[in-house]
């Protein structure tokens, strides 16, 4: 019975790590243009997408995130010249490892969103939230002691 209630009220929690220079500005642009994207997305600003330690992602899942999305500048446009090239290699390997351990691949994603792409930011978030809603609650990396609802 608890489980059914749980599913009825469940809303996905999405953590979006956005790079300060492109994607965060892109989200800002979406806001000033009054474009709609789901409130399930919680944005965390990082100086560069390569600032993201794999532990951040695992930590987000531990504390109940159902999906984690990383947004950075398009390859070639990094404010720090090479940061997102490193992100690209690291995250490819990390996602492959998560898949190897049996954690659904669809819960993690990397997207390149520039400061001018407010509409793209909205489209990406809508799509990702839809995908996570279909998958349901993330249980495989969740720490039950951290559950609040």
């Amino acid at each position, binding site marked *: 019975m608890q489980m059914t209630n749980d599913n009825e009220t469940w809303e996905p929690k999405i953590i979006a790590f956005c790079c300060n220079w492109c994607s965060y500005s892109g989200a800002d642009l979406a806001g000033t243009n009054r474009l709609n994207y789901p409130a399930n997305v919680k944005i965390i600003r990082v100086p560069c997408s390569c600032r993201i330690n794999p532990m951040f992602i695992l930590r987000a899942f531990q504390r109940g995130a159902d999906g984690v999305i990383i947004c950075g500048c398009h*390859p070639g446009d990094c404010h720090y010249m090479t940061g997102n090239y490193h992100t690209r*290699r690291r995250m*490819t390997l*990390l996602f492959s490892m998560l898949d190897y351990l*049996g954690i659904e691949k669809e819960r993690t994603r990397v997207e390149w969103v520039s400061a001018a792409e407010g509409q793209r930011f909205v489209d990406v978030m809508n799509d990702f939230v839809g995908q996570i809603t279909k998958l349901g609650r993330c249980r495989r990396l969740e720490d039950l002691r951290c559950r609040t609802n």
Partner: protein
Amino acid sequence: MQDELKKRACELLADGTVNRVLGWSAGDFFYDITPTVFESAEDINKNFVYNDFCGANLSKYLIAESQKEGKIAVFLKPCDTYSFNQLMTEHRLKRENIYAVGIPCDGKVSAETLHDAGIHGILAVKKDGDDLVCDTVYGEKRMAFDVAQDERCRSCKSRKHVVYDELIGEEGEVLDSHRFDEVEKLEAMTPEERFNFWQGELSRCIRCNACRNVCPACNCELCVFDNPKSGVFSKAASNDFEDANFHIIRAFHVAGRCTDCGECSRVCPEHIPLHLLNRKFIKDIDTLYGDYQAGEKEGQMSPLSAFTEDRDAEPSIVQKGGIR
């Protein structure tokens, strides 16, 4: 072989090339092997051993030993020389304080494998053709050497010494060992099966940190897992998250630097096949960024420090069931 090494170690000490020798000695049982620094010929003649149980990789001990005064001689098996090169690449060793002696290795055995196979009270072992003959208090027991040896030796990647000052025995070759077979088997499973497999393995973890402490690639002065604020500080796994978190991060931190020496699995008291995590990264790196063997040459650029602007795969290449 043991006598030859003893003789050479004594010579090196006597002619003043080195003032210490890093080798192995036996504990209470002859198969209970500990890495040891010897300082006198007397000590070497009494305690030095080299046998089928000397699996320990001595490279990591050189980080501390090479900082001390005087030169140290070290015996390196082929797989240890890869770790040695990797440590050189990372500027962790003082090369001028090390005299590396390459020694041959034809696969190592661990006492646990023999115990698991019901062979107890071992007094001596010797090789007889393809068999390992164990002289025990209960009489003679036989076991195929292929079965008895460690998994990492069964799929040995190389019998070639990539670095040495002096070589005892003959130069071996790089082998095609099918070491990714196990990884491929796991990749072919469904996500549920994989999750259950890894949960079954990783939930046995007692967080003794032996895998980290023994790993030649895990050589940070201060480890992320030693940070009391990290939230994963010396905590026995109590749920799925902690099981997986430590092992994902551990494997990720050595990705691109792991030489696949297999020490992590050898020392694991719970027999978790940790090398399968490392090999997954090695396999992915090979597939995506070209063949790369960490430690093959000194000064190599790790694939995780390097990148190409236009040829790197996007993270979306990882589909359900891995990289396609």
